[in-house]
């Protein structure tokens, strides 16, 4: 008798909860019917195709916002510096549009003064951050144009493309997408964006007189203009500092012919021996898998 009573009570409870649930479900259904915000599933699909690094290079607040801008405001997908050609094509297909190909750019640090070559005139004892050091004295390096080497750019690179090697920032061109975040962060303003197919650069940014430059760095451009004499069209000499005008046209043979006496003009590849390159390219793929 008691057991039957308990069973009826349980049944009753279940029934009441069921009815309340059903009623609330209906309310939600009606609310959704009238108040739903129409979302574009294209935005979600495009967000998935974008790199997802939220680097801000496009000028929008992250990849999601940029995807919304592509669909709603008609922003050009080439605004995303990290988006590769295949993804751009796919995004174009989603929207039924065709986007022009974008010239890929990479960052390069115009300095070759690492710990062995640049002379340290002071012992810096403070925050290990380039921008903090710049607010004081710019670290211990004697050159006031060169790389501070405390890795603010490397820490803030969304793609992990910058490495601090022996007190000098080096950009891996195959990892760099050219978002320009480091260009903005560098207190010395010595990171520049160059075409991705550049082969060689003059790795010096010092506008100092040659005598002063030589005192503080063994690897500063001495302005001998040997390169300018050999290839007048490819170089631009401005005082004590020479710049490569068209870095994509230089070849290894040209450089051998020039034979820069301070070796400040050298190939991009030279910084990355084959073993190092392989190791580095494997890294992001592994990371990608982890993310998924």
């Amino acid at each position, binding site marked *: 008798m008691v057991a039957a009573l308990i069973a009826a009570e349980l049944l009753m409870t279940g029934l009441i909860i069921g009815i309340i649930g059903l009623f609330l479900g209906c309310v939600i259904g009606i609310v959704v019917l009238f108040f739903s915000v129409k979302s574009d599933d294209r935005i979600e699909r495009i967000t998935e195709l974008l790199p997802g690094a939220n680097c801000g290079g496009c000028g929008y607040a992250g990849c999601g916002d940029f995807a919304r801008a592509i669909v709603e405001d008609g922003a050009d997908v080439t605004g995303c510096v990290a988006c590769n050609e295949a993804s751009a094509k796919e995004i174009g297909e989603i929207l039924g549009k065709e986007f022009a190909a974008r010239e890929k750019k990479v960052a390069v640090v115009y300095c070759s003064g690492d710990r062995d070559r640049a002379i340290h005139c*002071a012992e810096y*004892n*403070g*925050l290990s951050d380039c921008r*903090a050091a710049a*607010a*004081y*004295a710019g670290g*211990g390096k004697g050159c*006031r144009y060169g790389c501070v080497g405390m890795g603010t750019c490397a820490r803030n690179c969304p793609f992990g493309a910058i490495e601090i090697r022996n007190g000098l920032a080096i950009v891996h061109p195959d990892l760099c997408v050219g978002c320009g975040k480091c260009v903005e962060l560098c207190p010395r303003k010595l990171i520049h964006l160059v075409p991705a197919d550049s082969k060689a650069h003059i790795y010096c940014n010092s506008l100092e007189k040659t005598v002063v430059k030589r005192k503080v760095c063994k690897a500063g451009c001495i302005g001998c203009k040997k390169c300018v004499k050999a290839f007048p069209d490819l170089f631009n000499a401005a005082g004590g500092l020479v710049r490569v005008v068209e870095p994509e046209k230089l070849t290894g043979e040209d450089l051998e012919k020039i034979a820069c006496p301070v070796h400040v003009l050298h190939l991009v590849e030279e910084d990355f021996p084959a073993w190092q390159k392989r190791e580095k390219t494997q890294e992001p793929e592994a990371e990608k898998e982890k993310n998924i």
Partner: protein
Amino acid sequence: MKIYNFKGGFHPADHKELSAGKKERELPLLPKYTVILRQNVGSAPELCVKKGDIVKKGTLIAKEGAGLSVPLHSPVSGRVGDTVLVPGPNAGMVEAVEILTDREEQVWDTSLPPIPDWRDTPVKILKQRILDGGVTGMGGAAFPTHIKLSPPPEKIVDTLILNGAECEPYLTSDDTLMRNHARAVLVGGAICAKILGITEIYVGIEENKPEAIQSVEQASWGIPGVNITVKALPVKYPQGGEKQLIYALTGRKVIVGALPMDVGCVVINVGSCYAIWDAVLNGHPLVERITTVTGTPVVDPGNYWIPIGAPLSAVLENAGGVKADSRTGKIIFGGPMMGFAQYSLDVPVSKNTSGILLLEESEVAQFTGGPCLSCGRCVEHCPMQLPVSTLSKACKNERYDIALQKHVLACLECGVCSSVCPARRPNVQHFRKAKTELKELSWKEKNKQK
């Protein structure tokens, strides 16, 4: 009169006995002086002599530039040399002009005539003289004094404060000036009071300088026309901070973002007062200053009259040099709390070098910067009552919006928080970085609006 005690601050071991009370001395003539062009806050003066020109002591070598600027004069008689780059006192290379003293006799330039009857001289002429004399704040910031003495007409100034607190440990240069030249200092103060059109002068001196207090009190009786009150202040760092000093003497609080003028005060360092006296009554522009050369490794610490542009190496040589058995760990321009460590012996003395301090290697603590313990010692000691620990964490994580909200810009960089921190956090450097970043951000925003 009541002395108000500001909240926070602390008293570090001051080591003033090394150099206090010693006879002031002069440096012998050096073969070469390198005078830094930009020695003041604001724009650099423009060089108006060329290489090979003969100059006398006090000859104008650079005219005042646009905006906030003061002219610059030759510290010695000699020939103008090259314009060179020298390591500056605040690090980095700065432009300087060489003055070579190979054969010329040392004579003063007489283009600025003395004004002995300054009481009957129009204010305009006096103000012009302070500008022509190249007088800047000599306590450390090197703010042009003539700007300080020209408050806008809507701000009513009623009190002039002479800052003789000298709260930085080790330094005794202001102390020496007040002991030996109290009258000159007070006349300089009286000239400032005349320019401001007021009669009330307070002199704030820390209690650990009884001789200076006595000497200034005695001298104050002989100066008619102004009402000078000498006040002994409790010994506490940073008593000589502008805002702290105003509060201690008048009880007025300068709020964040306001200037001393907003509460009717003008604060002038006693060193600047002496320079004003020299410029007005003797017609000598500011070309040399009294500087404390001190520290345990120095053989003969004391106060020296050093012409601006004398390189650090020469100053140390003439101060008896460094003890043979000591290892110098650090050389600081200014005091140990707010001064700048130097890396080169070529740094020249400039108008705001109040001290040259050498520290033994064992006295120098190396930066470690551990994690914050949230003990709250920094908050307790901050003279500006800032939430230092929160601010420091915000700055470390680059949350400058939080830092701005919590008034990081009010930090006066006195260094109290860093020195009481058991984790040795570089708080001041964090705040300095935050200030630069915030300046850059606001500048960027301004450009965007344009």
